[in-house]
């Protein structure tokens, strides 16, 4: 009789945790819907809900259709897709490397993308999709370099993070140096690759980033089962039957691909990959990697930051990366302060 009672408890406890995960994702989805609706209606040209819906389905005033379909909707979609990619990638980095500070910003992978793009822009005069490819290559190269320097008979998390921090400084310095040497009119185009923006992602590029993110997410789902054992440390993971190095390589490759893809379109949007998983994990609070919740949080965070950057900041339209930086940095400090207290 008592056995039955505890058995229900184990199943019940798991159901409670699952409900909580679903709730967090639903909440973030709601935030996306509210912020997205707001972003559709508010702007230089204010639209009524009726006009917006008509515009979205291609009916109504030509100007409205253009504003909705070519300007506002793609920007919302871009923020959601890119934010989700950053959030998911950050969660993968943090759980795989067992370090809450591991994120593409800190590891220099985002700055690698910036460096690739800035080099392409200033030295080679590239633009468009080729320039995005340069950013992708930059992120990939930095990840590979970190890998080669950090690998010593297996991947050691702390060495990976420290080598990454070194590369972040190196790439940022090179970007700054390139900008200092650039002409004034060129430097404006470079800026976007250092702060990140979703204002110019549309059409084929948006479709590419969205499809790529979707495909990578499916791949993540396929390997995500190893995250539970991996979060217990290498020895425990191996004892539970996980091939630790292979699992880690696979997960990090997917995370790097997600970051490279998102950064190649939007530039390095500061702190989303670092902060979104931290928020998601805190909300879900089950000791898991909170992958889906992190993606949803990343999407919500990026969209809200972009809307805020367009409308809320003292009449200045700021790129999304500036807003996430302004919000993310204090949050990071708060996180560090409270974590410190808790661990005592």
């Amino acid at each position: 009789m008592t056995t039955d009672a505890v058995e229900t408890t184990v199943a019940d406890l798991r159901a409670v945790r699952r409900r909580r995960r679903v709730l967090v994702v639903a909440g973030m989805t709601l935030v996306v819907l509210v912020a997205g609706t707001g972003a559709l209606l508010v702007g230089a040209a204010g639209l009524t809900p009726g006009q917006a819906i008509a515009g979205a389905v291609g009916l109504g005033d030509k100007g409205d259709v253009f504003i909705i379909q070519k300007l506002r909707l793609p920007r919302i979609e871009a923020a959601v897709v890119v934010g989700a990619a950053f959030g998911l990638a950050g969660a993968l980095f943090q759980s795989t490397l067992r370090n809450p500070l591991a994120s593409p910003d800190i590891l220099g992978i985002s700055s690698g993308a910036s460096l690739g793009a800035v080099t392409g822009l200033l030295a080679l005069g590239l633009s468009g999709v080729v320039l995005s490819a340069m950013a992708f290559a930059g992120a990939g190269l930095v990840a590979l370099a970190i890998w080669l320097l950090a690998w010593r008979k297996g991947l050691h998390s702390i060495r990976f993070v420290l080598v990454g921090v070194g590369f972040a400084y190196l790439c940022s310095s090179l970007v700054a140096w390139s900008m200092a040497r650039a002409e004034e009119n060129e430097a404006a185009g470079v800026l976007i690759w250092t702060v990140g923006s979703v204002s110019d992602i549309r059409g084929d590029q948006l479709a590419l980033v969205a499809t790529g993110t979707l495909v990578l997410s499916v791949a993540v789902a396929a390997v995500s089962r190893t995250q539970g054992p991996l979060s217990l440390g290498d020895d425990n993971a191996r004892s539970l039957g996980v091939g630790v190095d292979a699992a880690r390589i696979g997960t990090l490759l997917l995370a790097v691909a997600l970051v490279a893809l998102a950064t190649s379109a939007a530039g390095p949007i500061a702190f989303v990959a670092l902060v979104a998983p931290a928020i998601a994990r805190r909300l879900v609070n089950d000791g898991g990697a909170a992958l889906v919740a992190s993606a949803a949080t990343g999407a919500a965070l990026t969209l809200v930051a972009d809307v805020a950057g367009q409308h809320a900041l003292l009449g200045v339209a700021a790129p999304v990366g500036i807003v996430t930086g302004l919000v993310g940095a204090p949050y990071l400090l708060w996180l560090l302060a409270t974590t410190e207290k808790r661990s005592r």
Partner: protein
Amino acid sequence: MTNLRAEGVSLGYDGLRVIEGLDLTLPDGKITAVVGPNACGKSTLLRGLARLHPLDGGRITLDGTDITAMPRKELARRVGMLPQSSIAPDGVRVAELVSRGRYPHQGWFGRHSSDDDAVVTTALRSTGVAELADRPVAELSGGQRQRVWIAMVLAQQTDIVLLDEPTTFLDVRHQLDLLDLLTELNRDRGTTVAMVLHELNLAARYADHLVVMSAGRIVAEGAPADVLTREVVSEAFGLRAQVVPDPVAGSPLVVPVGRFHSSAVEPSAVEPSAS
């Protein structure tokens, strides 16, 4: 019959050989304790047996099969290992952590079945942490936490369980609780237990088979009463000691002699226990 055996095994770190050509068979269905001074290679040996540490030479077999030739997941269904000082991720709850022991038994999608729940429940129960199921692991005391980790290894349902210094950081009462728990596991389920222990006298009391190591080799192994002599303690630990019968269990009790306390009672003056 599941025999874990080391055959001419060499282990080391970055070119530094810790163990050279060591042979050891864990007796099936028995409790084996490995003791020895710091840095004698006892933990390294255990890690090698669990395939946590690559071999520099020799092989480790399970029922005659080289364990490196087995898929890791299959090995994980037969040999469980509790490494030294595991740290639970932030926020993870007891039931969830113990459930992770089911990983090697689950398929690609890893849904928890009701069988898994039953196994997890039994593991929680037999380690006495069932009422803590919903508590975050980080909030537990050291003794409770160690029980939770052992519950995770139990949920793995392996015939062989290896433990690397499971009693470290526990006070003496919790050390006994834990060793009693492992004895129960061994008696009730016939689980083969092998553990590295620091506390010689507890090792002698709880082990069926005692392995004394020093400088990467086995100094002596066998029944504790045969193995733990003054000579062996002196050879392995470089320690002068008297060995008297444990008044409670009758197993050998090592009483070390330091520099400042001369022996008041000669070993011959102590009555041998009845058993």
